[in-house]
Structures are given as C-alpha cells and as structure tokens.
C-alpha cells in the first residue's frame, strides 16, 4: 500500500521538473514523461526505485534513438572541424580529441584556424605542444580558409591521419561568420579525397538556444556529433536531448574538466543515472 502511494500527481510533476531543470526543454521533457508513463503502466511498476529506473531507461532509449556517430570516411587524412558559439570549449576540446586519437596511435595535426580572437592562435599552439603534435598556423587576422588549405597540404605531405581544425567562436546569428565557416568547409571538401567532418561543441550550461545553434551550424557543416563540455559543473547538458529529438544528432564526447585527458566517450547509461 505504501509502495502504491509512490505514483502521485506530484510524482509526475517532480519527474518533469527534474528534466526541465536539466535543460531538456518543455517538449522533450513532456515526451520522456509520456514514454515513461506508458512503460510504468504497462509493466505495472509501483515502487520508487522501479519508477526512477523507468525514467532512466526512457532517457537512455531517447539518447540511443539519435543513433551512433557515423563511421569515419576511409580516406586519409580525415579533417574534423571543431565548431560552435563563443567560449564553449572548442580549442580545449580540439586538443583533448587530438590527445585521445594520438593515444590510440593516430598521427594528428592541428590547424589553428581561429585567426580572429586575441591569442586564439597562441592558445592552440600551446595545446599542440602539450599534446606533442604539429600545428599549422598563419598570422593573426589572416584568412582561416587558407589555414585549412595549408593544414591539409601539410597533412598529405606528412601522412597525417587526422587534422583537427580549431575554428573561431561565432554566434549562429551572424550570417557573415557562418558563411566564412561554410567557405572553410568547401575548401576542405574540394581538397580531400573523402569528406570533411564536423563536431559541434555545446556547453552543458546552455539552455534551449542550443537547439538553434545545432540547427544553424548544421546548415553549413555536416555535423556528425556533439561534444558536450563542462559536464564537471552542476549543469546537466539536457539540451542535447532537445537537439537530438529535433535534429537526430548524437553526442560523441563529454568534457569533464580543463585538462588534456578530461574527455570521455559519451555513455547514455551513465548520463541517465546522473540525471535521476
């Protein structure tokens, strides 16, 4: 009888509040609650642990429904653009991904293509020396597409496996900056035997604006996956569920700190457990 009392109207409100508090957004939170309700009713779940577990399983199901990041193209070099709005952790994440790939035996090269922001190039160069990998850079204020071009030529000459392109932060609402990114992408596409790739960096503290970011960046780049940064804070990064629900983009990595190895492959089970 006490167990039966676990399913109160307040229970559904609190579960939905937990998802909203995680930045999943109104529509996505409602969807997860709806799915969990079906499961709870059909499986006759009554105890509080079972109820929580039902929600966890629905979050996992939703995250898994966005699919796996696509297989990388077989051609070498690979070129991965690291893109996103200002301050989300692109430069740091590019370094972390480079370090991770290098540990796995990849020969990597960094392209310091943020030629705009003060000390943008220096920051990438410092990270490259910590990873112990080559970096291609030009003068501050130079054409970032030229940096992309040179880095691919250098990669071909040095038999590099993967080029990581650090791009300048840019708000998706700035048409000229999005066009600049599109141009960098086309330069890479022309120069490569295969296709370039792009990882969109999303800050875990971001609210629903993350959906607009993903939508617009997805229009100029082929965004294969998301790197969700700053998950070592108190924010839950739930906007990636809203993004996945609308655009189907999966999360590949999560950033959990400011150090070179503070990057983990995304695990939906771990994520769902942290939520509930």
């Amino acid at each position, binding site marked *: 009888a006490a167990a039966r009392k676990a399913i109160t109207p307040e229970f559904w409100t609190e579960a939905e*509040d937990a998802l*909203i*508090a*995680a*930045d999943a*957004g*109104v529509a996505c939170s409602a969807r997860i609650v709806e799915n969990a309700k079906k499961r709870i009713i059909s499986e006759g779940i009554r105890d509080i642990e079972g109820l929580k577990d039902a929600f966890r399983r629905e979050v996992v199901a939703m995250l898994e429904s966005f699919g796996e990041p696509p297989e990388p193209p077989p051609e070498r070099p690979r070129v991965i653009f690291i893109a996103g*709005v*200002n*301050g*989300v*952790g692109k430069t740091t994440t590019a370094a972390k991904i480079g370090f991770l790939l290098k540990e796995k035996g990849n020969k990597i090269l960094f392209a310091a293509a943020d030629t*705009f*922001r*003060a*000390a943008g190039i*220096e*920051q990438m160069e*410092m*990270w490259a020396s*910590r990873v112990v990998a080559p970096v291609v850079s030009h003068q501050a204020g130079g054409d970032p597409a030229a940096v992309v071009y040179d880095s691919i030529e250098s990669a071909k000459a040095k038999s590099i496996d993967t080029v990581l392109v650090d791009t300048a932060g840019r*708000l*998706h*609402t*700035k048409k000229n900056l999005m066009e600049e990114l599109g141009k960098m992408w086309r330069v890479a596409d022309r120069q490569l035997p295969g296709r370039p790739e792009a990882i969109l960096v999303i*800050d875990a*503290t*971001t*609210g*629903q*604006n*993350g959906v*607009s970011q993903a939508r617009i960046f997805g229009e100029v780049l082929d965004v294969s996956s998301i790197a969700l940064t*700053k998950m*070592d*804070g*108190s*924010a*839950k990064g739930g*906007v990636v569920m809203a993004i996945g629900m609308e655009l189907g983009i999966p999360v590949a990595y999560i950033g959990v700190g*400011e150090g070179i190895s503070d990057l983990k492959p995304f695990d939906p089970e771990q994520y769902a457990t942290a939520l509930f």
Partner: protein
Amino acid sequence: SLSDRLQGVFAKLRGQGKLTEKDVDAAMREIRMVLLEADVNYKVVKQFVEHVKERAVGEGVTKSVTPAQQVVKIVYDEMVDILGGTQQALKFASHPPSVIMLVGLQGSGKTTAAAKLAVMLRRQGRDPMLVAADIYRPAAVEQLQTLGGQIDVPVAYYRHKSAVAIVEEALREATRTGRDVVILDTAGRLHIDEDMMQELVDIKSSVPPGESLLVVDAMTGQDAVNVALAFLDKVDFDGIILTKMDGDARGGAALSMKSVTGKPIKLASVGEKVNDLEVFHPDRVASRILG
C-alpha cells in the same frame, strides 16, 4: 509570441465582465511554457506565475484592449519590475585606485569584458589598468595583453606569482603610476570548485574590490540560479554582466538570477569588439524573454 498564444487562450472569452480564475489558469499555463522555453528557471517561473495570477484574476475586461493584451501587460510590467529597479551604476572608491573584479564560469566572457570595461571607463574620463590574474588557461595572459595593446591600456602581470600576489603587486603599481581604476580579470572557475572559489575569497580579502561583477553568458539555462547563488554565497558580488546578448538566446537567466539574488544586471555585452558594452535595458530584455 506571448500575445499570440494568449489570444488563442482567450478567444472564447465573450464580453464577460471579469477574467475568471479558469480563464486565467489557461493563460498561466501558456505563460509558464513561454518562460521555460526562454530558459527562466522552473522555480522562478512558478513564483512568477503565481504572482501574475494574483494580479490577473478579477481584472475587469475592458473594451479598449483584449484580455490577452491585458494579461501580457501584467506579465511585462511584472518582469520589468523584477529586472530593473535597482542601482545600475558601478561603484568607485572615494580614494583611488578603485578596484573592479570580474568573476564567473569558464568561457563566459570575462577577459573580453575586462577590456571593454577599460574602454568604457576611459571614455568616462578615468585612467584604467588591467590585471591578468588568470594564471591557468593557456595564453590567457597573452589574450589580455593583446587586448590591452589594442586599446592602449596597461596590463599588469608578473610571472611565477600566485593570482593573489599578482593582484597585490598590480595595486601597488597602479598607485605608483596614478591609475584610478584597476580591473581584475580572473580565471574562469566552477562554483563547485572549492579551491578556486577560495582563491577569489583570498583575492578579495587582500585587495577588497569596490565592485565585484559576475559575468554570465546570456544563453545559460536552468543552472544560472545555482551559479549565481553559489557565487553570492561564497564570494559575494555587486552586479552582473550579461554577455553574448548579440545572439538570439532569449535570456531567461537574467530574470532567474535577478529574482533569486536581488543583484542588478548592470551591463550587457553585445559583441566581440571592445566597444560592444552597454547599460542593461530591463524593458528590452523583458520583451526578448517574452518572445
């Protein structure tokens, strides 16, 4: 927009004398959704909607405006009331140099804001100095030095010193060179990182700032409340700078933070250039949150 959504809710209202509780409940559901979609914290939304409901129920339905317009006006006025109404001016010391300290999460826009503040204050006739107290992030000092060079403002930095020691030495140098305002750029940090929060406490106790500003990204979601309360509790701050307002984030975090801390949003950063800093406009942000 909120207006459109409420028009739908009130469409069935026909010449009744007052807004009934049932009419208003339907409207409150729409308002709650709009505010959550705008990233206002869900607990703040609850309080806000309860408050608005009290004001809306029993409102006479006048002939000159629609019920929807009436409710929108109540919501808008309530929001402008919360967002504004407090001292927005920066505080300066009676004896120079004044110290302004910038704090906040990683990547929120502090270093850029420091340079922008220097430009703004110089335009007001002051003589600023910047202090590079972020000793952790690769090329953070270079970033501030590059900005300082662009705007011709000196940047104080001393190798191999702790953040506290850098700030102490900078203040001595500012006094020596007759600078009347010192702007401290600190490292981005998590509000849950005890050691890093302690560093701010140590800086403040050694060189008490007349003005501490929490720098927050306008796209911050529900977590804005946790961040603001933690910084308030552990470090204390006088006001907020809301950055990246040149994007299309609705900015609900502004309402959340003002609501729970009572601290004013003093400035809005509206771009990446050094001139892109302006006074915070509560009415504009209220319209933006309401979509």
